[in-house]
């Protein structure tokens, strides 16, 4: 009798555990976010040569992909021995971010992923003074103010986390690929607003931003069950003793 009761309870525990972890969908809130870049104002305290203020927004399309857009105003001046250079303008970016963190872990709060964006920069540049020297002698000339439009691509690995409910902070690293500076081969900008050094085909930058995050919809996301071979299951069963593993659901306590 005692043996039968024991088997009954063990079976009951097994059924109970299967029910508790058999859930293979999770409800995730989708957010819209609007924020601004903190690094621009901080860098202005260090140097007045580069002023860069950016705002950015994003909207989750699903639990992994978000549509993102940004506007940035940049002003750059450089006074070197050989030349003075100034540029300023507005740049616009638009693209998508992909979150590598699974929906059941990120829960709309965490992001570690990569983005791809297309950027457009409307800017003006001038070189009020430039000096040249060769065997004929030295001289000075200037490049008058000209308006240009540049294009670039951005690859942006980054992370974001929820600081407070509704407030997120994050880093983005920017790897920018220049499509065209729009200024011809002779007058590539020393600094193209929104991109960086216009003489280089690739530029890097970083941004630290804070944003307000508002949930606008909830979606159910199917979580693919983790497939484990029986050997691994046995080993884990031995280690944990109680068999407190994910079973078919894939919800591991380690996550």
């Amino acid at each position, binding site marked *: 009798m005692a043996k039968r009761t024991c088997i009954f309870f063990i079976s009951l525990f097994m059924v109970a555990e299967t029910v508790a972890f058999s859930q293979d969908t999770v409800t995730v809130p989708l957010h819209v976010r609007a924020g601004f870049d903190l690094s621009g104002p901080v860098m202005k305290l260090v140097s007045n040569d580069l002023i860069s203020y950016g705002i950015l927004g994003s909207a989750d399309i699903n639990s992994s992909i978000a549509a993102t857009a940004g506007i940035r105003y940049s002003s750059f001046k450089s006074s070197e021995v050989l030349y003075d250079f100034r540029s300023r303008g507005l740049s616009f970016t638009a693209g998508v971010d992909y979150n590598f963190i699974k929906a059941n872990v990120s829960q709309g709060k965490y992001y570690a992923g990569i983005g791809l964006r297309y950027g457009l920069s409307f800017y003006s540049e001038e070189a009020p003074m430039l000096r040249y020297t060769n065997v004929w002698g030295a001289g000075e000339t200037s490049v008058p103010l000209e308006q240009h439009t540049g294009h670039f691509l951005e690859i942006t690995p980054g992370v974001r986390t929820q600081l407070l409910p509704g407030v997120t902070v994050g880093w983005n690293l920017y790897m920018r690929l220049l499509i065209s500076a729009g200024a011809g081969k002779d007058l590539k900008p020393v600094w193209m607003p929104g991109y960086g050094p216009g*003489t280089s085909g690739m530029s890097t*930058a970083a941004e630290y931003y804070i944003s307000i995050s508002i949930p606008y919809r909830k979606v159910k996301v199917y979580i693919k069950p983790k497939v484990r071979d029986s050997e691994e299951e046995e080993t884990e069963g031995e280690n944990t003793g109680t068999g407190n593993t994910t079973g078919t659901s894939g919800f591991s306590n380690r996550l």
Partner: protein
Amino acid sequence: MKRLSLILSTAAVTALAMILHSCSVQPCYEDTDPAMNTLLLVSGTGETAKADSLRVYTYRETDTLKFISLRGASTFSVPLDPANDESVFLITLNGVTDTAAIRYNRRPHLVSPECGYTIVSEITGLKTTHNIIDTLIIENKSVNLDGQTNLHLFY
């Protein structure tokens, strides 16, 4: 969360390194002097010629600028005057002197942020005397930093 903290701190260190790198002053290693390159050719055959002696210079109000003084040269390179739209060269080939006047348009060209700007030119025309020079023709009108041959000098 530990993973996120690790990623966050890695990103911060990388960003700081990039910012510090971008703040450092870089030296200029590039060529900043565009030169007009001329190839010497044998008149009639078009074969490359080797001058026994070659001198290229110009007279200015106050002095004489000597550009080239070579023996056994088959090419020479001279800079154009970046302050004027015309440069006049006296070319002495094997002891015989000709005068060549080169006309051009000038425009600034950014070499790099470290090196600054230089003046590149587009040759629009030329004139020469014919004491030893048979023909002087424009092969490539862009006088820039590419190092391509701009003129063919037949003598």
